[in-house]
């Protein structure tokens, strides 16, 4: 409840001023467009720069010519096939995967925070990521990983089932007394998440995987991924993103609380159900290829909200872009920090980057978080 904050009424008796003429009809403020534009530009630049980074040295001129060759094959006819393979099929694929996975996680985080009115909600804290990872590991153990049906791989479907199952469980645990409390929900998320992590470890051990694979699965990794993985995520990201975009106006209204949203004409039950499913779908697709990457979905929406405000039609595109950028940078650090081509799980990097930022939010923006 917001009551009892002891605000002193400071009402202007007769401050009838004309409407500020700058705003009314142009709906999307230039600030949001500026934000989208600069993010997009940074992403393009970062994508190019990170494509040149790796244990196998490639000058940026070569990278540039190889990228051009995607448009006209003649541009890089003289470049060795190994180099071409490394740049296009290893690095650029990985860059694209980082962007899609990051966009998916951040988008899902923004939706969870908006729908559940909970500033701490994200795919990781709600246990959705772990649920998806559990579903995916179970599918792999049972040998369903290679099954395709109508061109759809079974792996993201299993991850989706796990994600929805975990979300449902967390929802049940979090609303024990009929109401959903922000902190109870996150506690429930941690319980479910820890429990399922243990099961993932057990399943992986049964599968005779090494401990390091388990760590990479639980802490997230994009190593050894190819274009096929990118193609696996993109349909789900587009489908989920479309549903989320459809309901972006409703997301704004939901932040008024259920009763007021409903009185303004929102079909709250239906909208919330669809948004939660869409966010879980997007999360599941990301987790199915990358494992569990934390903090992206939590931090990115807050960061964007602080800079361009809470309106979801401006927020969501920026959230997807920044999420992608954050995972791209983190993944590049993850594969280049250690000498000799050794990799750190990317989830470790996002946590190291995201943790301090969240501490800052807790310390200085308590009022914004409304905890």
């Amino acid at each position: 409840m917001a009551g009892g904050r002891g605000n002193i009424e400071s009402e202007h008796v007769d401050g009838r001023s004309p409407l500020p003429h700058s705003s009314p009809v142009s709906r999307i403020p230039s600030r949001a467009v500026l934000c989208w534009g600069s993010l997009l530009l940074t992403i393009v630049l970062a994508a190019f720069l990170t494509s040149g980074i790796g244990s196998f040295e490639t000058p940026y001129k070569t990278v540039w010519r190889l990228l051009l060759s995607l448009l006209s094959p003649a541009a890089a006819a003289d470049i060795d096939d190994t180099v071409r393979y490394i740049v296009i099929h290893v690095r650029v694929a990985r860059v694209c995967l980082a962007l899609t996975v990051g966009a998916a996680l951040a988008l899902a985080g923004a939706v969870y925070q908006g729908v559940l009115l909970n500033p701490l909600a994200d795919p990781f804290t709600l246990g959705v990521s772990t649920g998806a990872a559990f579903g995916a590991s179970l599918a792999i153990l049972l040998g369903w990983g290679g099954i395709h049906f109508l061109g759809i791989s079974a792996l993201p479907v299993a991850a989706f089932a796990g994600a929805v199952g975990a979300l449902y469980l967390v929802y049940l645990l979090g609303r024990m007394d009929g109401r959903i409390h922000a902190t109870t929900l996150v506690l429930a998320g941690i319980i479910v998440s820890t429990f399922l992590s243990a099961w993932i470890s057990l399943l992986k051990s049964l599968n005779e995987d090494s401990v390091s694979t388990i760590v990479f699965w639980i802490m997230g990794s994009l190593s050894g991924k190819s274009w096929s993985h990118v193609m696996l995520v993109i349909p789900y990201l587009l489908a989920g993103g479309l549903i989320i975009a459809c309901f972006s106006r409703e997301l704004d209204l939901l932040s008024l609380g259920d009763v007021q949203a409903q009185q303004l004409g929102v079909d709250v039950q239906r909208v919330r159900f669809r948004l939660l499913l869409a966010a879980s779908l997007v999360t599941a697709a990301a987790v199915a290829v990358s494992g569990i990457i934390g903090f992206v979905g939590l931090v990115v929406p807050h960061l964007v909200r602080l800079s361009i405000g809470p309106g979801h039609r401006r927020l969501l595109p920026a959230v997807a872009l920044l999420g992608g950028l954050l995972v791209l940078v983190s993944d590049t650090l993850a594969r280049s920090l250690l000498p000799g081509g050794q990799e750190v799980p990317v989830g470790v990097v996002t946590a190291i980057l995201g943790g301090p930022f969240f501490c800052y939010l807790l310390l200085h923006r308590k009022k914004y978080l409304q905890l």
Partner: protein
Amino acid sequence: MLSASAPQEIPPAVIQVEDVHCGYPGRDVLKGVSFTVRRGEFVGVLGPNGAGKTTLVLALSGVVPARKGSIEILGTPVDRLKHKDRARRMAVVAQDGELRFPFSCMDIVRMGRYPHQGRWQLDTLRDEEAVERAMDITDTVMFAQRLITALSGGERQRVIMARALAQETPVLLLDEATSAMDIHRKLQVFRVLDRMNRHEGITVIAVMHDVNLAALFCRRMLFLKEGWLAADGPVDSVLTSELLEKIYETPVMVQAISGTDKKQVVFLP
């Protein structure tokens, strides 16, 4: 019943409540309430705490379904109206709720246009006009670019009022909408409501605590007590010390204000 001038045409019913039982699972708060509000009326709904005022608002706005009985808004049962359709017929000036995200006041008022907008439609000039007008009427223009979270309770309430006006509905339902305001603002809001009621024929149903404020502006009063309709009628016939003493269980004196046709109530210690 009270037809002073017989051949006058009776305005159509706007809200029809019939034998409504409603509340939480296993416990009815409203225990069989019936009344009809006609177009152009200005009705106050009053009663002590726990009488069922809030439940009545939730039932009328379709948030809580009635367990028994029926509620019709402009001739259609509320449970058969689409959500947006209902919000185009009746706007609710809600009690100050929790606001999680720092929207600007203008964004909040724009939300009132939601029931008029299609899924992919951007705000039209029509929407902007409605928003401007609503903010002008409620004297909230100067808050347009300020954050809703930075306003005081009374200021926030006026923005919520503007949002309801932006819905441009023939019926306005107020849920303790002026409780957080000082006397000056309360009067100002009710003067606005009075003007809209008289000049634009908007039906106003104000659920409120303040008997004296209701006595100044409402032309009809409903009193709820323990889930029943304890009294219903024109202010003159309802505002009597006998009736109020029964409802509020406290000694009451009703005084006429000299020079007007208004009455005020004094609760005695």
